[in-house]
């Protein structure tokens, strides 16, 4: 729960398509698996329809994540509007469950973007040209990419460094591994005082 995100070094896998929606990231028929697998158990269903044949087991040989050298990928490169579509948080869990802690794309679906921070996954916004440059190196077999959140840099396999922007509060959430419930509960007295005052004003809203 209190994991944080500071630096990340690992294999980056390019999935250079536009508008990869949450239904592609995690097809809806897997949603109810949550009560068997928990949030951490969705990795096996990531990109379910693209990764596997109809039997949901046999890997499709031409899907990029099935290449042996991408098996342990920690970073995903994509194009515009990654994570658009339905609001399911399961999409983030599937990425994380697989081991991907950072998605680099020029833009993201809004709800997906928010959900990433709640799960200590970094949605990293980088311009298309930089992403293409990194992808070109990966295509040549150099696949290791590093991210330093504190410094706000991405280091490509050949050592080239790109900087990225991130909202200060969100950066802090990741760096400190802030647990939202814990933070709010620290201010419980304030919430309680608010509730007491509100109870006097709108007593019908409280059902005890």
């Amino acid at each position, binding site marked *: *729960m209190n994991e944080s995100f500071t630096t990340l070094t690992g294999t980056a896998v390019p999935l250079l398509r536009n508008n990869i929606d949450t239904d592609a990231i995690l097809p809806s028929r897997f*949603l*109810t698996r*949550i*009560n068997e697998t928990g949030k951490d158990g969705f990795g096996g269903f990531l990109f379910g329809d693209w990764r596997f044949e109809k039997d949901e087991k046999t890997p499709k040989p031409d899907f990029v994540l099935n290449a042996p050298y991408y098996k342990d990928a920690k970073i995903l490169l994509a194009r515009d509007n990654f994570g658009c579509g339905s609001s399911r948080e399961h999409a983030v869990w599937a990425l994380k469950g697989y081991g991907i802690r950072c998605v680099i794309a020029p833009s993201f679906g809004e709800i997906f973007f928010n*959900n990433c921070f709640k*799960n200590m996954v970094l949605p990293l916004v980088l311009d298309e040209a930089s992403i293409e440059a990194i992808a070109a190196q990966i295509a040549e077999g150099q696949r290791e990419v590093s991210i330093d959140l504190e410094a706000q840099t991405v280091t490509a396999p050949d050592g080239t460094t790109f900087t990225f922007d991130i909202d200060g509060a969100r950066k802090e959430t990741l760096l400190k591994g802030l647990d939202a*419930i814990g933070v*709010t509960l620290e201010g419980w007295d304030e919430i309680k005082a608010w509730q007491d005052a509100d109870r006097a004003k*709108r007593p019908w809203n409280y059902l005890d």
Partner: protein
Amino acid sequence: MSQPRTLFQKIWDDHEIKDFGNGYSLLHVDRDIMHDLLGSLVFEPLDKRGMKMPNPELHFATMDHGIETETGRTDETKIAGGKAGVQGLRRKCKEYGITMFDLGDERQGICHVFTPEQGIALPGSTLICGDSHTSTIGGLGLLAWGAGLTEIEHVLATQTIVAQKPKTMRINFEGKTAPGVTAKDMILYTIGQLGAKAGNGYVVEYAGEAVRALPVEARLTMANMSIEMAARYGMIAADDTTFDYLKGRPYAPKGEMWDKAVEYWRTLPTDDGAVFDREETIDATKIVPMITWGTSPQDVIGVDGHVPDPAKAGDADKKAYLERALAYTGLTPGAAIEDTPIDVAFIGSCTNARISDLRAAANILKGRKVADGIQAWCVPGSGLVKKEAEAEGIDKVFKEAGFEWREPGCSMCVSLGGDKFKQGGRAISSTNRNFENRQGVGVRTHLASPEMVAAAAVTGKVTDIRKLAS
């Protein structure tokens, strides 16, 4: 004098515990509604901390999403993990002292149907639920929206939510609607006019004469489809119609408390002169019975209209869009949508499965028969809707016409349970989403009002309700 404020702003102000200053605030959550898909998992942070919930009495739960809707159902579901969800949620609600309307309880039903029905949702309050159509409940004049699982965990533990303040939009309906036009047609028409992305980042308030004229259940239908316009919240100010609807419901305030509540609720409607970030006007007199032709709710035309022709599209993007949608729905460009043969007719979902919807459909079905070869289903929105319908003999009308009369749940709205339509079939449905494969593999969904669904069921093809009724 204080600034004139919108309905939304008043509710926001009355629930803001802390403004974080970056567009986000900590809001009090007055009501939280849970369903079987959440299972036990959502309680994990509480379990880990070994803490009690501060206000379990403000939370309610039911089974609706993954369960079966056939008679004699049990906890078993055809979808993997469904049963674990049902039983996990039940166990946890017991443990934490949360009221649950379980399978077999007549109050069980689709979350957004039982919440107004029980008087759990009250004007001027905040309510969240783990389903994007929670906007439905805003039809009673409150701020209700769909939250993600991590947000619900936060609500269980703190009775608060960190929320981003939306921009405000008001949609004014001018004039009166014609006979045969329902709230479903009003909202479909609106989405068609403004587009499926228009409400992104907004809270939408529906206002104007035609909205004020709607009974509460119809207002819920309108607010329901706000999310189809990409708006997370939809609302309609509470008025005497709302108060009449709520009075006497099990969880609504009583006696002196009721009077105090009404007095407060009357202060909430948008003040004259309040400024919205965006205002839109809809000419209500132009609305006719609507039906979708494509794969987004914005792909909608009047039942007397024609399927768009990609060849006549203004630009290449538009052309590609139309081609793709028509490739899926298999309609002929330029053809009249009326008389398109259908295979399936479905009446159900939190959009249109309340008693008024069932009554309206039964009016059409009375003395008529479902056309040969049509699979026709009615899934009442809650156990109480079903009971009321049965007391009125509506179930008999449906059954005699040839409809299946099922147990309450989400059913074919989301097709998570075992409920399935024939592959590739053409369905006319009172639900809210006509996305590809939403109602089964290759199923082509046409959204319409329950009356239009009933009419198509008996003729076997898309039918103008105004012709059938006369």
